Each structure stands twice: as C-alpha cells, then as structure tokens.
C-alpha cells in the first residue's frame, strides 16, 4: 500500500507531460483540438494532489530517490528523486488548482485563436515543469526544471509572436531570468564543491556539520537567492514582469500571478535553513525595496494588467521579506493565499477584457458593475483579500507577515525598523491603488459608451473559475479563527523549521531560536493588526475621495507633482537605465565583435584567397611556359633527331650495305 502511493507524485508529474505530448502530436486530429482532454487531465491531477496531501497528513514526509548519473571516480554518484513534505504538498495543490482553472477559463478566452492547440500543449508543458520544480529533492534537478519553466514562460509570453511587442517581452523575460540563473548556478557549484552533493537533505546535514561556513556560506546563500531574484521579479531584475503582460491573460494568471513567480519564493523557503544571518539580511532588504518600488509605480498605471503586474511584484516582495525576517511559514502561507486571489484578479481582468472586446486601458472603462455582476463581485472579493481586510484569507497572511516584521525589528533594533515601516506603507499603497482600479473599472460612469453597450457577462466556463477562486479567498478555508491563523490546518502543518544557524549574528541580524521568536510574534500580533487595518482603511478612503466622490481634482494634483508622477508612471526609468548601460555595453561589444569578424577574420580569409589566386596564376604561368616549354623542347628534339636519323632509312640497299661495311670496319678496330 505504501509503495504504490509513493508513486503517486510521479504520476501527478507525468500527467501534464502526457497532455503536452498528446496535444502536440495529435491535437489537430482530435475534436475541438483536444482542449477538453487537457482540462479533464488537469482536474484529475488536482484530485490526485489533494489525495497526496491527505496521505501526507497521515503518514508524514516521504521521499523517493533513484540513482541518476555517475561521474565515476569513487563516490561522486548523483541521485534524483522527489520528496513530499509540507512545502511540496501545498505547492502541488496550488499549482494544479490554478492550472486546472486556467485551462477551463481559456476554453472561452482563447476561443477561435489560430494556435489554440499549441496554447494548450504549452500549458501542459508549463505545468509539468512547475510540478517537477516543486517535487524534486535535488537542487541540480530543480535547476533543470527551473530552466524548463523559463522556456515554457518564453513560449507562452511570446504566444502571439506575429506582433513585435510579445517577441520583445518574451526575450526580455528569458534573458533577465537567465541573469538571475547565473547566480543560482554559481551557488549550486559552490555547494557542490564544498559539500559534494546535490541532495537537499545531505546539503543541510553538511551545513549543520560545519563543512560550509562563514563568508562562503553567505555567498552561497546570496547566489542561490539570485535565482529567486530573477524568477520572482525582485529588484533589480523585476523589469520583465510588466512586459510579460503581452501574453494572453490566462497565461498571466497562471504564470505571473500564482505559480512561476512563486518558484523563487519556494526556492528561498527550501534553502531557508541554511541562509546565514547576512544572507537573510540581504533577502529581507531586497524584498522590502521591491515591495516599495512596485507599489509606487502601480498607483499611476492605466492598463488594468499592468496594475495587477506591479501588485504581484509588490506582494512577492512581501513574501520574500517574510522569509527574510525569519517567518518562512508566513511567507509560504501568503504565497498560497496570494496565488488564489491574484489568479482570481487576473482572470476577472481577463473577463473584463473579453467583455470589452480587448480594451485594457481603465480610462476607457467604468460602470461595468451593472453589466458584469459576477465579475464585479469576484473582483471585489479578491481585492478585499489583497488589501488585507478582515474575514479574508489575505488578511490572515498579510497580517502575520507584518507582525513578523515588527518582531524582527524588536529583536535587532536600529536600522531594521525601516522594514516594518516600509511594510505598512506598502500595505497602504496597495489598498489605494487596488481600489482606484476597482472604482475606475466597475463603478462610476462608463467612459466609452460604444464598448459599454456591447459588453456582456462572460460565459460560464469563465465565471466558474472566478467564483471558485474568490470563495477560496475567504478566510474559512485556512482557519476557523478569522483573526488568527495559528490554529488553522495550514499553519499547523507548515511550521517554520529551526534554522541551522540559530544563534549566529550577522552585521545587523541575530538569528534567534523558535521559542523566543514565537513569543515575540504573539506580542507583536495585535499591534500589527490594528496598524495594518488603519493603514488599509486610509488607503481605501483616499481612493474613494480621489476617484469616486471626486472631492479632490486628480488632474490638477497630478500637474503639481508632475516630476514625481512621471517618475512613477515611467516605472522609475528602470528600463531606460538598463538600456543605456548594460544593453548599450553589450551591443557595443557585439558591434566590436562583428567589426572584428568582418574586417579581420574575413580579411584574413580574403587575403588567403588572394594569395591562393596569385599562387595559382604563377603556377599556371610556370606550367605554361616552363613545363610546356620543356615538353615542346623534348618533342622538338625528338622530331629533329628523327628527321636526322630518318635520312639513314633511304630505302636503298646500297646505303645499307655501306653501313654494313662501315660496321665491319668498326668491329675490326674494336676487336683487333
């Protein structure tokens, strides 16, 4: 019984692969291009992952390894396999659920697209890669799946590759991700060189035994985290995610709200126990800075998807920050809740775009509440969750994170107080821009009457996922106490592990043990809750004042703070900065290489060709003059001698007798 169940994760991993292959090779022959098969397979996968979670709850953690490859020379053989523990079980459900709902939603959203079959096969490929990433217990194999996820996202972002913007966006996503992956790989190599293994369990054992420590340990931790910076769009590699909105909206929901970007958070959670104090400091500050920058940009954006994209970056910053301050379980919890309500937000945005016939600018929308009620209510529910309003799941997770930051600041003091300050500030900004979005889209008066008239509610294939996801944003799924998640099943299951480096100190960070930390958390819990509620309420109020009651003239305000407004609207000019520095540098180098290739290499080749042609001309002349001359000379000589000696053949016997006599005379003299 045990053994067969242990193979279930493998089955879960392979079902999306099967969907990908089936649709890729046979999709054109299947009715409706096989989309219903894909949808069914994914829902089966979801059911199986729920079952796995159930088994895990009964039996606890288990893993399954096989021998992978062998570099020879003794004990350098590597294993591959998967592990089911609390992190991976939860992620299985999250990935499969969001993927299944996106499959269903896309039936209507992508209807009539020319590359419909390819879309579903790519979705299967992506799901397979993501599942592989969360299941594996081997950091090298995780890197392999990491890259596969990157490839799938490239294919899906650039899905409408006939237009130039998606091509550029896909390239940007892949390249920026790659930059992060360089750091990730160097980190893997450091671990391998010092610890000699890729298996997580062995790595942690090695670190606990002190084989890797000090500066190298911090460096390894930071480098591994670089991968997360790239994949989870943290500062400074966050520039790809807004551009990735060029892909279809369901793709944005799947990849850029819920799953792929969560991979970075997942990785950081996995390696949490071996991050040193300084590495954790780095992680925390990156997360906080990211959250702040993207929140400031989100308040001025006018594209519905761009607002949600920056909101995603900001929330990812929250999760990273949570792991950094030592509350890994809260970070993961926020990941789960965020996955559901952010996917819901993206899918409602998709529904709005579908209803408005592919307009994405919110300045053209308004008053859609009456026309698309289901969409409106689900959007409202998800927004409340995102802002951290009580009775939602988002409230539970966000609140815990803010409490953790307060505890962190209490422990370390000094400059670390900036972390909770930023955290609360971002919470306020989040509430403001989300409600701005809601008001401008659904409330008020319609701005574009023509589109408004044509707008209808979306079909059920699109609204059912919306309803389900918004229900999942309700608090009850995660805890029966609306104000604290500690007694809920998820927090019971997912406890922050004791760091391997408890007791160590970094420059500003002191890793304390779990007991002390939990104490501080309890103390900080209620202050954080009230503070966050206050800040969120302020944000919502401001949004209503600006946009609904229109007490303040937004446009004149914008004029007064034009420089700051522009700075925010233009995304803090990150793209321009990168373009002027790194990209210009790289282009310069490539131009130099092209010049070298053209002038020098080609010049050498041409020079060689010219020399060869001279040589061959000279050789030809030599052949003509000298060789032919010799041949002609010898021919002439032969002819000449022939002419001379021909005279001997006179045909007259008398001449022959003469010669005969001559011969006799000669012979006489020879033999006398």
């Amino acid at each position: 019984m045990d053994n067969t169940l242990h193979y279930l994760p493998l089955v879960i991993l392979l079902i999306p692969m099967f969907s990908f292959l089936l649709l890729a090779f046979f999709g054109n022959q299947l009715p409706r291009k096989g989309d219903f098969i894909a949808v069914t397979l994914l829902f089966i996968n979801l059911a199986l992952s729920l079952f796995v979670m159930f088994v895990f709850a009964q039996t606890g953690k288990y893993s399954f390894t096989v021998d992978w490859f062998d570099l020879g020379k003794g004990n350098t053989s590597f294993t591959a396999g998967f592990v089911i523990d609390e992190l991976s079980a939860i992620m299985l459900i999250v990935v499969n659920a969001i993927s299944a709902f996106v499959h269903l939603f896309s039936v209507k959203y992508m209807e009539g697209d020319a590359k419909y079959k390819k879309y579903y096969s790519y979705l299967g490929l992506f799901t397979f890669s993501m599942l592989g990433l969360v299941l594996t217990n081997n950091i090298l194999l995780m890197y392999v799946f990491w890259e596969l996820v990157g490839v799938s996202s490239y294919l899906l972002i650039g899905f409408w590759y006939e237009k130039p913007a998606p091509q550029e966006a896909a390239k940007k996503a892949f390249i920026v991700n790659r930059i992060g992956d360089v750091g990730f790989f160097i980190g893997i190599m450091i671990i391998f060189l010092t610890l000699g293994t890729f298996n997580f369990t062995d790595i942690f054992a090695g670190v606990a035994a002190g084989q890797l420590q000090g500066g190298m340990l911090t460096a390894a931790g930071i480098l591994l985290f670089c991968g997360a910076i790239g994949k989870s769009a943290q500062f400074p590699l966050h520039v790809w995610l807004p551009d990735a909105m060029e892909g279809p909206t369901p793709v944005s929901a799947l990849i850029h709200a819920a799953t792929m970007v969560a991979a970075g958070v997942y990785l950081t959670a996995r390696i949490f126990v071996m991050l040193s104090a300084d590495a954790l400091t780095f992680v925390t500050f990156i997360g906080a800075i990211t959250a702040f920058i993207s929140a400031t940009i989100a308040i001025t954006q006018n594209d519905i998807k761009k607002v949600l994209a920056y909101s995603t970056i900001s929330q990812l910053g929250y999760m990273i920050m949570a792991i950094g301050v030592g509350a890994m379980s809260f970070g993961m919890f926020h990941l789960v809740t965020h996955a559901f309500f952010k996917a819901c937000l993206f899918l409602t945005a998709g529904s709005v775009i579908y209803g408005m016939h592919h307009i994405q600018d919110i300045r053209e929308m308004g008053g859609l509440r009456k026309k698309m009620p289901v969409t409106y209510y689900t959007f409202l529910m998800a927004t409340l969750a995102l802002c951290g309003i009580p009775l939602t799941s988002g409230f539970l997770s966000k609140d815990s994170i803010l409490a953790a930051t307060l505890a962190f600041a209490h422990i370390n003091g000094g400059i670390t107080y900036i972390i909770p300050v930023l955290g609360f500030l971002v919470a306020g900004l989040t509430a403001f821009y989300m409600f701005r979005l809601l008001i401008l889209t659904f409330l008020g008066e319609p701005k574009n009457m023509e589109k408004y008239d044509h707008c209808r509610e979306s079909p059920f294939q699109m609204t059912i996922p919306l309803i389900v996801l918004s229900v999942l944003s309700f608090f009850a799924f995660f805890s029966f106490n609306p104000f604290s998640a500690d007694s809920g099943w998820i927090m019971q299951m997912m406890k922050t592990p004791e760091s391997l480096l408890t007791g160590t100190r970094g420059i500003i960070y002191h890793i304390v043990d779990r007991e002390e930390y939990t104490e501080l958390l309890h103390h900080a819990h209620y202050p954080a809750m009230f503070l966050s509620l206050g800040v969120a309420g302020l944000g919502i109020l401001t949004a209503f004042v600006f946009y609904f009651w229109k007490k303040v003239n937004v446009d004149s305000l914008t004029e007064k703070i034009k420089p700051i407004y522009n700075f925010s609207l233009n995304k803090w000019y990150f793209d321009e900065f990168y373009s002027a520095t790194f990209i210009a540098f790289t282009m310069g180098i490539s131009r130099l290489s092209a010049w070298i290739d053209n002038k020098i290499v080609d010049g050498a080749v041409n020079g060689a060709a010219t020399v060869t042609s001279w040589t061959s001309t000279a050789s030809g002349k030599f052949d003509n003059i000298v060789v032919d001359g010799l041949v002609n000379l010898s021919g002439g000589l032969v002819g000449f001698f022939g002419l001379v000696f021909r005279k001997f053949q006179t045909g007259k016997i008398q001449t022959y007798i003469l010669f005969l006599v001559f011969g006799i005379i000669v012979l006489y003299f020879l033999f006398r």
Partner: protein
Amino acid sequence: MEIGLQHYLIISAILFGIGLFALISRKNAILILMGIELILNAANINLVAFSHFGGIGIDGQMITIFVIILAVSEAAIALAIVLNLYNHFSTVNVDEANTMKD
C-alpha cells in the same frame, strides 16, 4: 721476288674492294650485279690460292666449283628480277624504283 700466297690474297682483296665499290655506288642494277660477280671472283681467287699454297689440298678448288655454280644460279635469278623490275618501272635505276618510300 717469288710469288707467294700473299700476292694473290692482296689481289683478291683489291678486287673485293672494287667490287664493293661497284655494289654500293652504282645506280644501274646490271652494274650492281657485275659488282657482285667481281666479289665472288675475288673469293674464288682466294680459295684457289689457298688450295695451291695452303695445306687444304683439293678442297679449295671444290669449293670454288660450288661457288661458281651458285653464282650462276644467283645471276640467272637476279637477271629475271631485273627484267621484272624494268617491266614494272621501265627503268633499272635502283633509286627510281622507290614506290615503297614515303
């Protein structure tokens, strides 16, 4: 001076040379035949002289007879050929009978 063997031999040698000269430098076929006869006669003189002065007894003269016989038959046939040549080319100059030459 006593006539010895060598005198006759010298005579025959001179005759041989003259005959050879006639053979190789005359154009008329009949004259060439005459040269051949001279040569044969020189050989005959040689043989007879040897038979007289040398120790070969009568053998020298026997051989001479046979040489004469052969010379006769050869001259007969040669003349037949010359007549044929004359009928074909209407000349007996050996260097004008040259249709085999290029």
